[in-house]
């Protein structure tokens, strides 16, 4: 592991300064204790990604070379797989999948966020039946995506309950806009409550005094929401939204089971990659996977940079007052931020 060496060096030079510290000689210990996790992740995440990059430059299978000889095994083709992705028939398939992936991500995440925040606000106001709601909200989250995909396929049957309720004869899971809509509905159902749960947890860290002060100052409900609730709940919301975005970008189970493979209206990049790999075209499959990986990484980077999503609680760990006061700061994180917000 590349991490272990620097960790060692640094801490040894540091250790002499804090001989009496509880954390004496921690660098090496940390490296040793972290190595199993980092080795496993290197094997199951780093290796596949590097290998996919390499694989995407090769093509496998039997081919004829320039002299008419049969060439077996992998041949280095440079960026051909990538060039093939963006052009011709595969090109249009790729751009459709790319569009679908992006479309689902934007629409689903926006809907889920709006619904989730609304749910969280309602739950925050309700004092009865909270545990019932909390249990109910976890049900869609706990149901395997495959099962929920089948469930929605059943609901969206031609003579299923959805058509009965709205009195129409829509062929939902065939293809076209209605197939897209069925995916959006199913995905929103499954994850909006989850966003609601995370936002609710964020809401509960806001002390009631802040709202009382706002009321005394004569703030309207809307003002209170925009100026107090939203800024204070933003860290929790951003993390939830980031996770949803990354999750929806790799969406596979839901369209694959609800509508099925080879349906242009719902085919996503993950499905495209799976399809290629399933047909043992590993080079192009790896190229698709790499493109998706880069797309996800870029979106995550932009999201974290632009909006400052604080995934690991870094900002709060660096609160003024240092490490010793941290526990107290965590006990009332809302209070510190609230006073800032109140001063605006």
């Amino acid at each position, binding site marked *: 592991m590349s991490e272990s060496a620097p960790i060692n060096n640094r801490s040894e030079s540091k250790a002499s300064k804090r001989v009496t510290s509880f954390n004496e000689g921690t660098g090496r210990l940390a490296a040793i*204790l972290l190595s199993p996790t980092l080795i496993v992740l290197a094997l199951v995440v780093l290796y596949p990604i590097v290998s996919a990059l390499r694989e995407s430059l090769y093509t496998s299978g039997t081919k004829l070379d320039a002299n008419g000889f049969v060439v077996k095994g992998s041949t280095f083709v440079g960026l051909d797989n990538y060039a093939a992705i963006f052009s011709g028939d595969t090109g249009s398939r790729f751009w459709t999948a790319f569009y679908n992936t992006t479309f689902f991500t934007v629409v689903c995440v926006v809907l889920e966020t709006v619904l989730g925040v609304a749910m969280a606000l309602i739950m925050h106001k309700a004092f009865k039946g909270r545990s019932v709601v909390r249990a109910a909200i976890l049900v869609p989250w706990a149901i395997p995506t495959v099962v929920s995909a089948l469930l929605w396929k059943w609901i969206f049957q031609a003579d299923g309950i959805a058509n009965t309720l709205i009195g129409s004869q829509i062929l939902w899971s065939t293809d076209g806009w209605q197939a897209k809509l069925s995916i959006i509905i199913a995905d929103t159902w499954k994850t909006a409550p989850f966003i609601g749960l995370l936002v609710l947890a964020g809401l509960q860290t806001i002390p009631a005094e802040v709202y009382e002060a706002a009321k005394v100052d004569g703030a309207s409900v809307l003002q209170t929401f925009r100026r107090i609730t939203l800024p204070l709940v933003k860290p929790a919301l951003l*993390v939830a939204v980031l996770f949803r975005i990354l999750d929806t970008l790799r969406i596979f189970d839901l369209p694959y089971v609800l509508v099925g493979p080879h349906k242009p209206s719902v085919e996503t990049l993950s499905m495209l990659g799976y399809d290629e790999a399933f047909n043992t075209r590993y080079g192009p499959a790896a190229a698709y996977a790499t493109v998706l990986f880069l797309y996800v990484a870029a979106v995550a980077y932009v999201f974290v940079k632009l909006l400052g999503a604080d995934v690991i609680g870094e900002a709060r760990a660096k609160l003024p007052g240092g490490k010793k006061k941290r526990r107290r700061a965590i006990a009332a994180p809302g209070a510190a931020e609230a006073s800032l917000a109140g001063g605006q």
Partner: protein
Amino acid sequence: MSTNVKVAAAEASPWRKWAPLVGVGVIVIYCLAPFYWMAVSAFRRPSDQFSNKLIPAPFSIQNFKDVFSGSNGFGKGLLNSLIVAGTVTILTLLIGMVAAYTLARLDFKFKNAVLAIIITTSMFPGISLVIPLLKLFINIKWINTYQAMIVPSLSFALPLAVWNLTAFFRQMPRELEQAAMVDGCTPAQAFRKVIIPLAAPGVFTTAIITFIAAWNEFLIALSMTNKKSVQTANVIISQFTGTTGRDQPFGSQMAAGVVVTIPLVIAVLLFQRRIVAGLTAGGVK
């Protein structure tokens, strides 16, 4: 919280009083109605499959019998799911607990970087991990084995567990180990004898969340297997053809869905407080 109650009570116009309760009702229905429809459809007679009545009449468990009796291999699928998800959970906890404790307790340079790397790994799209691993596993003849499903599953399970456990360990006062070490324990002993027993609730919470995530996994299990005898329940359900050769065996699929989901729903009902605490630990606190 109590001040909140007073504020709400002070201005208790009927609308203010009832609106949240109505809202709660809407949320509960929103969350549970589709699930209810799955259960209801599962308990219809196969011949009533397309009935849209809200209560199955006559009530029948024929669909469940079909699911387990047929050549689906569904029973074996459940066992496979249990083996795969169980092993993933145990491995993840064994490896992740040590890492989480280190990240929560020891101060070293790059700590945030390491934590960020670990979390980031859980965000990579499954398909970019599965395709290279698929080729590797074909070469080393791992296709249709449990380990071919277990090992890739660690890619999302391990970061999730480390993240959860780190948040949990951080909440435990440092004085615990310090006291143990004053009494003559080494740090390793302090961890084994003091922390692990006290961490049991957090570890349990993480175990539930990891297990649910692993139980729900589909892409890896679908890619790494093509034999029914090793496929997990999720893959088998998605490829159901039913026992009677109907085109769409929705009755059996719903029954199988209920069977797969029931353990999770029971876990959620029993441990909802813990699960919520675990899910929000990393993200919110």
